[in-house]
């Protein structure tokens, strides 16, 4: 199936529509809540939580014996929350640092989950196959009820986020101040973390345990490059997330043998790469251009300054001098001379140059500029 074919099928085919809607909603909620995770410097918490959710899925299956995704995801939610609490417990009560706590919980819970999964596989129960789709995710397994669950959870988190917008924002940027003016920071903190865990758990079926954290981070990291405003960042991240979801699903559906998770991650990665390079203001390309421009400006001013020092020694500032006396050391190049002439600071006449009134004044001002008016 070609990608164009996919998009034409999208409008008629019920299954494709469900799946695409699911990944789009998922991308949006992850981008939205991921913005908070990124700004709280808790990017890797998502990685730990998603791995920690695995034993929950296995235990939920062992207890209930069903493969109903909402029950399995409830198990994932509980074990994800236990993992998060334990991480908090380790960092606050012992001298182990957060990176150790994250890596520890991540690998141990995942290992325990794998133990349970392999244990389940050996059970004489025909119903058990397919739990391993939670490792890498398979968007094709999404059914309408899953998507409905996603939409409901997204709606609720959107509502909670708007309700507590002010508190979330304040806690994000100045936790101490938030506490001093009497907000219950612990509650807000737990609420944000809970929402993030919720978003992660929601994505396990589609993207899988191993790569879930990237869906949380990548759209937010990309959105961060384009704006300094939280609300714009959240909206932008949601859009990036939704697009990564849809494009990723389209690509993976049009090829054989491709899990959805890795493709969505790579699409989101392309968004990040693009933003890193091309975003105005922060992007690497823009930064390089600005750097070069500054350097050229500096060279230009250096030439002007040298001309000024020569012109100062003469009664008539516009007395012509030979171009020869300028050299590279003073930032002189043919093009810089041309530029100076274009600015009207010097007048060129054959092999000689003369300073203009305007250029003289400009050079005089170089050292008298007020600092910090940039």
């Amino acid at each position: 199936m070609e990608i164009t074919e996919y998009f034409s099928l999208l409008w008629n085919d019920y299954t494709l529509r469900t799946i695409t809607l699911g990944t789009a909603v998922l991308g949006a909620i992850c981008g939205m809540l991921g913005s908070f995770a990124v700004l709280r410097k808790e990017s890797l918490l998502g990685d730990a939580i998603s791995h920690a959710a695995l034993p929950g899925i296995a235990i939920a299956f062992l207890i209930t014996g069903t493969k109903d995704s909402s029950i399995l995801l409830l198990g994932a939610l509980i074990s994800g929350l236990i993992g998060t609490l334990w991480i908090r417990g380790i960092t606050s009560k012992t001298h182990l640092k957060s990176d150790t706590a994250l890596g520890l919980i991540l690998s141990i819970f995942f290992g325990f989950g794998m133990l349970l999964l392999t244990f389940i596989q050996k059970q004489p129960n025909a119903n058990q196959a397919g739990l391993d789709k939670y490792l890498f995710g398979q968007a094709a397994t999404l059914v309408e009820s899953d998507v409905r669950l996603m939409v409901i959870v997204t709606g609720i988190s959107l509502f909670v986020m708007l309700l507590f917008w002010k508190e979330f924002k304040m806690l994000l940027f100045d936790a101490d101040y938030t506490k001093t003016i009497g907000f219950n920071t612990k509650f807000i903190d737990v609420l944000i973390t809970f929402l993030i865990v919720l978003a992660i758990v929601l994505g396990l079926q589609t993207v899988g345990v191993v790569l879930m954290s990237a869906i949380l981070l990548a759209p937010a990291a990309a959105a961060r490059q384009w704006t300094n405003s939280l609300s714009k960042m959240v909206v932008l991240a949601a859009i990036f997330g939704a697009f990564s979801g849809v494009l990723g699903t389209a690509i993976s559906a049009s090829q054989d043998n491709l899990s959805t998770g890795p493709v969505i991650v790579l699409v989101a990665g392309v968004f990040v790469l693009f933003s890193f390079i091309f975003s105005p203001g922060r992007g690497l390309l823009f930064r390089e251009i600005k750097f070069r421009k500054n350097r050229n400006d500096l060279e230009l001013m250096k030439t002007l300054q040298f001309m000024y020092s020569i012109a100062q020694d003469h009664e008539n500032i516009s007395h012509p001098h030979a171009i020869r006396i300028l050299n590279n050391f003073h930032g002189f190049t043919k093009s810089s001379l041309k530029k100076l002439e274009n600015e009207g600071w010097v007048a060129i006449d054959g092999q000689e140059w003369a300073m203009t009134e305007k250029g003289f004044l400009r050079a005089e001002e170089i050292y008298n500029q007020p600092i910090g008016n940039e």
Partner: protein
Amino acid sequence: MSNPQIEIQLIAAIVAMACAIPGVFLVLRKMALISDAISHSILPGIVIGFFITQDLNSPLLILLAALTGVITVILVEYIQKTGLVKEDTAIGLVFPALFSIGVILIAKNANDVHLDVDAVLLGELAFAPFDRLMLSGMDMGPKSLWVMGVILLTIITLLILFFKELKVSTFDAGLSSAMGISPVVIHYGLMSISSITVVGAFDAVGAILVVALMIAPAATAYLLTNDLKKMIALSMFFGVLSAISGYWLANLLDASISGSIATTLGLLFLIVYLFAPSKGLISVLYRQKQQRIEVSLITFLLHLNRHEQEEERHVNHLQEHINWQKVRANTVLDLAEKNNLIHINNDVVTLTEKGLVFTEKSLEYIMSNKDEKIDSMKDDFFLFRG
């Protein structure tokens, strides 16, 4: 025990020891998550290496994949340096992308590559004894035993040779540069060794569970000791212990060996986390409770010292005044009376001689806020605890 069983346990123990040593330094350098990043991002290196060599245990493949690990580290550091995102986000962006590339490479070549994603994530220790090293027709034992054995020997040799350098650069990068030991060289050396270990071990225990073997023993040992040598020895011990007991647990449950090794590591950490003598959760909570009572006691004595009138020093009044709950007020009152700091007469509390001296000392400490003042009081504190 049959022969393969012994071999599996031997391989598991060697992998555990090889992982534990770099793990200690990663934990101490607050770079534990780099091991997570490396273990994921070596996947494309392994896949490409496998296309070339067609052998999971070939040294060329290990070097190629380890190179991917080092590239990951460099890439993460480059992104951090641009300042576009925070450092942890940089890690979180790089390794899923590389891992995804690896997964897709495997998926697209699934037919002609004998390598699947489950094996990458989990490894299969149970199959390790079947891949044997044959030297001119002689059976030399399992290949992975040799590979990991060589890696372990290299690590131990490097550890002994560069122990001082590692120690200095881990705990004081500034001092180490001043002494002429480049922290950068040590850093990349450690990263290369970690990458090689992860690649060598991934075949046996899988990409993600390598992380457990690196971090968990070191974290467990760190809760028990502050001595670097002891920490290394302890984490090697914990690694081997969980490798062996994990193997038998897997045998019992008929489940994945690496999963059960990680689970035993987790249980071991849980036990130490709860019960470690001075850094465990229970002793930390107990100490915090003690300190709360001690602070309350000082507050209470200062309060008594400030008030002359009898009605201010009445027991019931004090409870209202300092606004403590009844239980806490009683604990403090009991403690103070038992230590002869106060005496209670007709429900009116008065400071004793000893109490007065003690209060003066506490005041002095509060006013000057110098540690040496409280040091002389520490002996008194022990009295309360007894």
